[in-house]
């Protein structure tokens, strides 16, 4: 028997995907917030990409000022609730907590953060209002976290904001791509609705921007544009058999899982290919969906994986097994995938080499490719003078997030190549300030 039974009902799905950072109750928050030392020039703040004044909001929680705590958080990070839940706090704020240096458990900053933000969202407390209209309009392409942060900040500054989103939900990978045990769909959407209600930015769903005509239209109507298109679908492995039914991309797999929950069927034998955080998520998810055996196959060693150690541990604790120094050479199967042929690899002078004659087949009914997402190259080509860097990401000014086409600003995965939601939130906010400065120069 695997670690998890196959979920048949919404309740079973919820159990299998129990929240990794559940909401604290008042007593938990009181005791946890009491532990904060209120460090000088606190390392947790330095470790937060959005620089939330963490000791301040923890003190506010401790003194019964939950609403003030939420305001402190949102002031620095418009997606404060989502980030409290999904940030890799183990390597950011909580990883920087000075308690770690004396083997004392670090403050549970992420959960305290949610404790504050969740309360204002649930109670629908108004913390912000749009600035007086300045008559300027900004369009955003894609409604991911970078655009949402940019939109909120611009609304406070008095801009009119229209977001054009191809899908039917806001917040991009936060709702479509994060493992379900990190945040629920409701939590993601409630935060966006909470912000939207107060700040009044418009999101136009089902509006993909894929033509020069559309771009032209936007350029004519808006004073500035923000590109928050993220990344594209999972990159092809270019392996024989890749097109077989049962071979899916991790991003697509996770999206389906987030939208359909227990209605998704994961077969008994799953191979996940990749060594990044998305691979870890996909492996955890396959296991929690009831797969008997989930292999995490990575072409280099365990130590060389890009994934955070805690993410690997979580995947293993969900039931996944690591397979290291194996590189896929072929997806095996006729009507449907029935295995992956791997070849063993070794590192010679830092270079990865295949060991000749070491091929073997791992049987499986499903292959999840977690080997990175393609860049949005075809979209970038629609915009004049948009400079793309060597990693196929949009090149921006690191202070203002302005692109080489001065009317365009950009942030999030399309710029950083794929990072955390908190990075997108920071970049979107900075870009808003960049737009404001540029329009008013």
């Amino acid at each position: 028997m695997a670690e998890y039974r196959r979920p048949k009902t919404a309740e079973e799905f919820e159990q299998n995907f129990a929240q990794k950072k559940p909401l604290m109750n008042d007593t938990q928050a009181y005791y946890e917030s009491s532990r904060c030392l209120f460090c000088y020039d606190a390392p947790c703040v330095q470790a937060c990409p959005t620089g939330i004044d963490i000791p301040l909001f923890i003190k506010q929680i401790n003194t019964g000022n939950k609403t003030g705590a939420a305001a402190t958080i949102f002031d620095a990070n418009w997606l404060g609730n989502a980030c409290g839940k999904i940030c890799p706090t183990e390597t950011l704020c909580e990883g920087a907590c000075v308690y770690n240096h004396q083997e004392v458990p670090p403050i549970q900053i992420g959960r305290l953060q949610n404790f504050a933000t969740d309360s204002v969202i649930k109670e629908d407390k108004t913390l912000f209002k749009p600035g007086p209209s300045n008559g300027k309009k900004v369009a955003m392409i894609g409604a991911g976290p970078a655009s949402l942060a940019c939109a909120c900040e611009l609304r406070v500054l008095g801009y009119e904001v229209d977001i054009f989103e191809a899908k039917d939900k806001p917040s991009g990978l936060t709702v479509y791509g994060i493992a379900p045990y990190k945040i629920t769909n409701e939590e993601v959407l409630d935060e966006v609705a909470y912000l939207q209600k107060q700040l009044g930015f418009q999101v136009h769903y089902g509006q993909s921007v894929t033509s020069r005509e559309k771009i032209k239209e936007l350029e004519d109507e808006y004073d500035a544009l923000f590109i928050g298109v993220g990344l594209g679908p999972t990159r092809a492995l270019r392996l024989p058999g890749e097109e077989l039914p049962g071979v899916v991309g991790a991003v697509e797999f996770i999206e389906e899982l987030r939208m359909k929950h227990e209605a998704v069927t994961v077969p008994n034998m799953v191979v996940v290919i990749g060594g990044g955080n998305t691979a870890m998520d996909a492996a955890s998810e396959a296991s929690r969906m009831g797969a008997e055996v989930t292999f995490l196959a990575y072409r280099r060693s365990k130590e060389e994986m890009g994934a955070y150690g805690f993410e690997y541990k979580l995947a293993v604790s969900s039931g996944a097994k690591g397979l290291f120094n194996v590189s896929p050479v072929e997806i095996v199967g006729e009507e449907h995938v029935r295995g992956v042929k791997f070849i063993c690899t070794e590192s010679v002078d830092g270079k990865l080499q295949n060991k000749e004659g070491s091929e073997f087949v791992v049987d499986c009914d499903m292959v999840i490719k977690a080997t990175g997402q393609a860049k949005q190259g075809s979209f970038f080509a629609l915009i004049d003078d948009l400079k793309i860097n060597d990693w196929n990401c949009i090149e921006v000014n690191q202070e203002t997030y302005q692109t080489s086409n001065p009317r365009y600003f950009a942030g999030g995965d399309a710029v950083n190549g794929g990072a955390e939601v908190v990075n997108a939130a920071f970049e979107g906010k900075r870009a808003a300030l960049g737009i404001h400065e540029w329009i008013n120069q």
Partner: protein
Amino acid sequence: MADLSIDFAGIKSPNPFWLASAPPTNSGYQIMKAFEAGWGGAVWKTLGVPVINVSSRYASINYRDTRMAGFTNIELITDRPLADNLREISEVKKYFPDHAVIASLMVETKEQWHQIIKDVENAGADGIELNFGCPHGMCERGMGSAVGQEPAVLKTIVEWVMEVAQIPVITKLTPNISHIVDPGLAAVQGGTDALSLVNTFKSIVGLDLDAYAPYPVVDGKGTNGGYCGPAVKPIALEMVKELAKHPEIQKTPISGIGGIENWRDVVEFILLGASSVQVCTAAMHYGFGIVREMEAGLLQFMDEKGYNTIYDFVGKALPNVTEWKHLNMKHKVVAEINKDKCIGCDLCYIACDDGAHQAIRIPDGTRIPEVIDENCVGCNLCSLVCPVEECITMEKRDDGSQHLTWDERTAAGNIPTTFNDDLAGGKGHYVPDPADALKHRS
């Protein structure tokens, strides 16, 4: 093993741990339970003309996650009929003949005092404690602290009591007074056998910000309460010391009260002259079982120090509690930060920079602070704020060969006497330029 038994002004008790007159000693049931748990004595909840209490009686100070760091009450003396209390005193003494049962008393007239003393003696009480301390409620009726704050009145009442009392009399003092020696001396001059202190402090522990009223809120209003608990221990220690050092009082046994919760507190009160201790808040917080820790700790301390009875160290610290003018100005300590233990919270840095003497810096590119020895005045602040055990220590830097006090300097005519005196202690001490405070602007 050390012998914990005491003979306190003639009141014998198997150990010095007594429950103070308070809610935990409201009934024979509670006191018998306490004796079973290990308490050596109990001062019965004050007897007098029965009162009527209000609902909502206690409130506390919570310091972060520490509950009841300070505690207040507006409860009056016993509201149970005197006959019930007297019957239960007899019953307790029947079960626990070797434990100390002390009757706390508070009445008004000489006749009432004489009558109630007879009553409790007949009931079998081992001693009497005169409650001249409660700063709430009863004082409005001319009793409790209203007496304790008037040494002449206090003395008169003690004299009334001593006219008739056949058992030892303890006078319990209020701390709500500028000079604790005044009522202490009055009680001794009135003939009291012993003193106990402190009663609670007149206080408002906090306000309900919606009701605009002090805690505990009684139907929209509150009143000052009597404050006690761990937060008051330092003031109580000081007052015990004042009496224990006074030449006319020092022979009178003192029962120490005020925020005692653990063995260290007990030892501290004893070292400053107390020969029994009374506890209330800790028992109200943790129950009577808290005495286990006090007893075990006290025994351990006595065994390690080689004491056979507590009398071997009662008042032992008193000679070292002196006036400021007798402190050695040549003594020098400097903070030392253990870099291996430091966790980089930098509280020592900011405490010193904002709150003390700017004697700690953080070298660029690190979070591990450094003490600037020449600026360090040895104030201890950094070692107090440091959250890591034994990380910042105060290291002695003088060789002990020199000794010079303010008193000696005064005698030698070597002290500053004018506002620009070159002898000022801070002259030449490093302080940053005022504009350095604005450096971050650039």
